[in-house]
């Protein structure tokens, strides 16, 4: 079954007023995160599999947004992207288990390991190179450890725990579904050890990564699913999609940054075109599509009303 996640825009826009004419009765009842929470509701109502709340030092903080989204939905998977340096693994696990308990286990984790040195320094983080992966490995090992075992002790380079581990009723809940990405050796090894889903870019060599991951994860007795992360612009017909993207856009397009997207690469076309391209990925083993489509609220409905049925048709055809 295909999982479709919608990336939420958490960068703040300028505040919008109503102007001098309409009587504004919103007062304190509606705040600056309202649009974001309503976008989550739209994804829920439109039947998408979930949303990704990105880590963005210049945007809203992902855990706080994720908690609100989980509280205001019933089915949506909410994947919070975060920097592993944001908290100790024990504290992160504690926050996560509360969210899991109170959301019927719909939280996902996306540890973010990318970003440049200056950005990290501004966050108080001076680790670089392979150490970032080592810390992420320790972070996930310790978080899973306290989650699943008691007593749990851990002694690593970055973290130590002595006789830790959760007690009932914080025990027995599913660990957050872990999404990781990257094509380097360290990234693939980290995914082999910890990822439930490994996300690739649309132009990555899926076959090669799939083989490499299968070999590495088998050594840990694990199985890692594949996902792609990409932008989407789907319209009633190919011509309309191209017109909205810009006339030069082919079905695979690198120009999404010009439309304000964070993910520059993605797909442009009719719903059937895009569904067929998704199906190409699905045939190569991709199960998760983490999608950026803007503006996110109307696009959530569009994806639910238009793309999901087209995908279901493709899937039926493939199974037949």
């Amino acid at each position, binding site marked *: 079954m295909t999982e479709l996640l919608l990336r939420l825009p958490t960068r703040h826009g300028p505040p919008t007023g109503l102007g001098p004419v309409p009587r504004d009765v919103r007062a304190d009842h509606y705040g600056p*995160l309202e649009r974001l929470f309503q976008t989550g509701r739209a994804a829920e109502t439109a039947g998408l599999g979930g949303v990704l709340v990105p880590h963005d030092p210049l945007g809203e*903080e992902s855990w706080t947004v994720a908690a609100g989204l989980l509280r205001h939905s019933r089915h949506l998977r909410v994947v919070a992207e975060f920097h592993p340096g944001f908290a100790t693994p024990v504290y992160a696990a504690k926050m996560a288990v*509360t969210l899991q308990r*109170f959301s019927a286990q719909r939280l996902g984790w996306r540890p973010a390991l990318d970003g440049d040195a200056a950005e990290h320094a501004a966050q*108080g983080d001076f680790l670089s190179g392979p150490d970032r992966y080592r810390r992420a490995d320790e972070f996930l090992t310790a978080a899973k450890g306290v989650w699943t075992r008691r007593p749990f002790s851990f002694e690593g380079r970055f973290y130590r725990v002595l006789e830790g581990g959760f007690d009932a009723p914080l025990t027995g809940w599913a660990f957050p579904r872990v999404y990781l990405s990257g094509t380097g050796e360290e990234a693939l090894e980290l995914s082999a050890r910890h990822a439930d889903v490994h996300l690739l870019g649309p132009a990555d060599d899926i076959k090669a990564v799939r083989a490499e991951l299968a070999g590495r994860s088998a050594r840990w007795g694990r199985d890692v699913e594949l996902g792609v992360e990409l932008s989407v612009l789907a319209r009633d017909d190919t011509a309309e999609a191209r017109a909205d993207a810009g006339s030069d856009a082919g079905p695979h397009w690198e120009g999404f940054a010009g439309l304000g997207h964070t993910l520059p690469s993605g797909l442009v076309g009719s719903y059937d075109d895009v569904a067929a391209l998704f199906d190409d990925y699905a045939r190569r083993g991709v199960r998760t599509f983490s999608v950026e489509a803007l503006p996110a609220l109307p696009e959530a409905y569009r994806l639910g009303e238009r793309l999901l049925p087209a995908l279901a048709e493709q899937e039926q055809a493939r199974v037949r």
Partner: protein
Amino acid sequence: MSVDFYWRIGMHGDQRSLRERAESRGDWAPHVAGSITPALRGGAPDGYAYIEHMADVARAAESAGFYGGLMPSFPFTDDPWAAAAMLARETRTFRFMVAFQPGFLNPVHAARMAATLQRASHGRVVYNVITGGGGPAQLWWGDEVAHDDRYARTQEFLRVHRGVWQERPFDFDGRFYRVEGGALPDALAAQEFPEVYFSGSSPAAIDAAGRHADYYLSWLEPFGALAEKFAAVRAHSAATGRTHRFAVRAEVVARATEEAAWAEVRRGFEAADTAALRAGRSGDSVGAARSRAFLGGPVNGYRDLEVAPNVWGGFGLLRGGPAFGLVGSYQQVAERLDELIALGVDSFILAGVPHLEEAHRVGEEVLPLLRG
């Protein structure tokens, strides 16, 4: 002068009453007939969770007139940051006093988390900065830093936290944290920095409070001891140039008559295991040691724990949490609270078991009697 009254949200379930120590609200104890376990209906999962009850307590406190509620944090509890973020949008005025140990969070990320929660809640975040009780619980969290160094770390944390929020861009090079060019984005930095309630009874704590706290928060103690503690904090803050407000946490058993209130306590005491009075010394908390010292004498009956009129030190036997609280008629409890206000207390964190019903009772029966 107005005083802020906070209530408490149980992050660890709740009891039906103080008469029997069984957490039958929430999922901390096995489900039996009469358990309030929002999550199970007829024994089957129903899509609800314990947070429904937390939301009910928050709304009860909100409508009863409390300014907000403390959300404590221990190894065995749910997490207050996560719970507050879930409850932000379904309460209106209730302020979320989030208890946390700064050492477990990165100060820059925590600033962004708090500022986003300020935006989600219209500025209803309050900090209860705790620096840890030491002992095995500290190691459970993965923290090996010793007592006074933990306060030094807390100070650095709050310095960086405030710096990236209010002095952008902010550079820092300390023992525990280093930041280059840290800054919240404009929309987050525009949020008000949360009020800081700071706990800790040791000299290291009082020094840290003097530099970073808006409210110096103490457990209830015999009033003379509290007055001395406040004087020490005042003397220290005179040296650092900051003025302080004071806050006190107190359990409350208030009934229409004094007899009814003590009868409630007596029933709980008679069912309790009094050996627990001598237990619980594994940490390095100075506040907990002070509480024990006030209860030095032999304990033959529940009134032996009444160290001053209406001030009872046996609550640790009846439920998890601090030892001291006020027991008496509505009028007596109000008078004791007024005496504390006269000592300089500007804010209270009250609590009563069960939290839902007692929020209404204390809000309706005790708070209106205060004269300030």
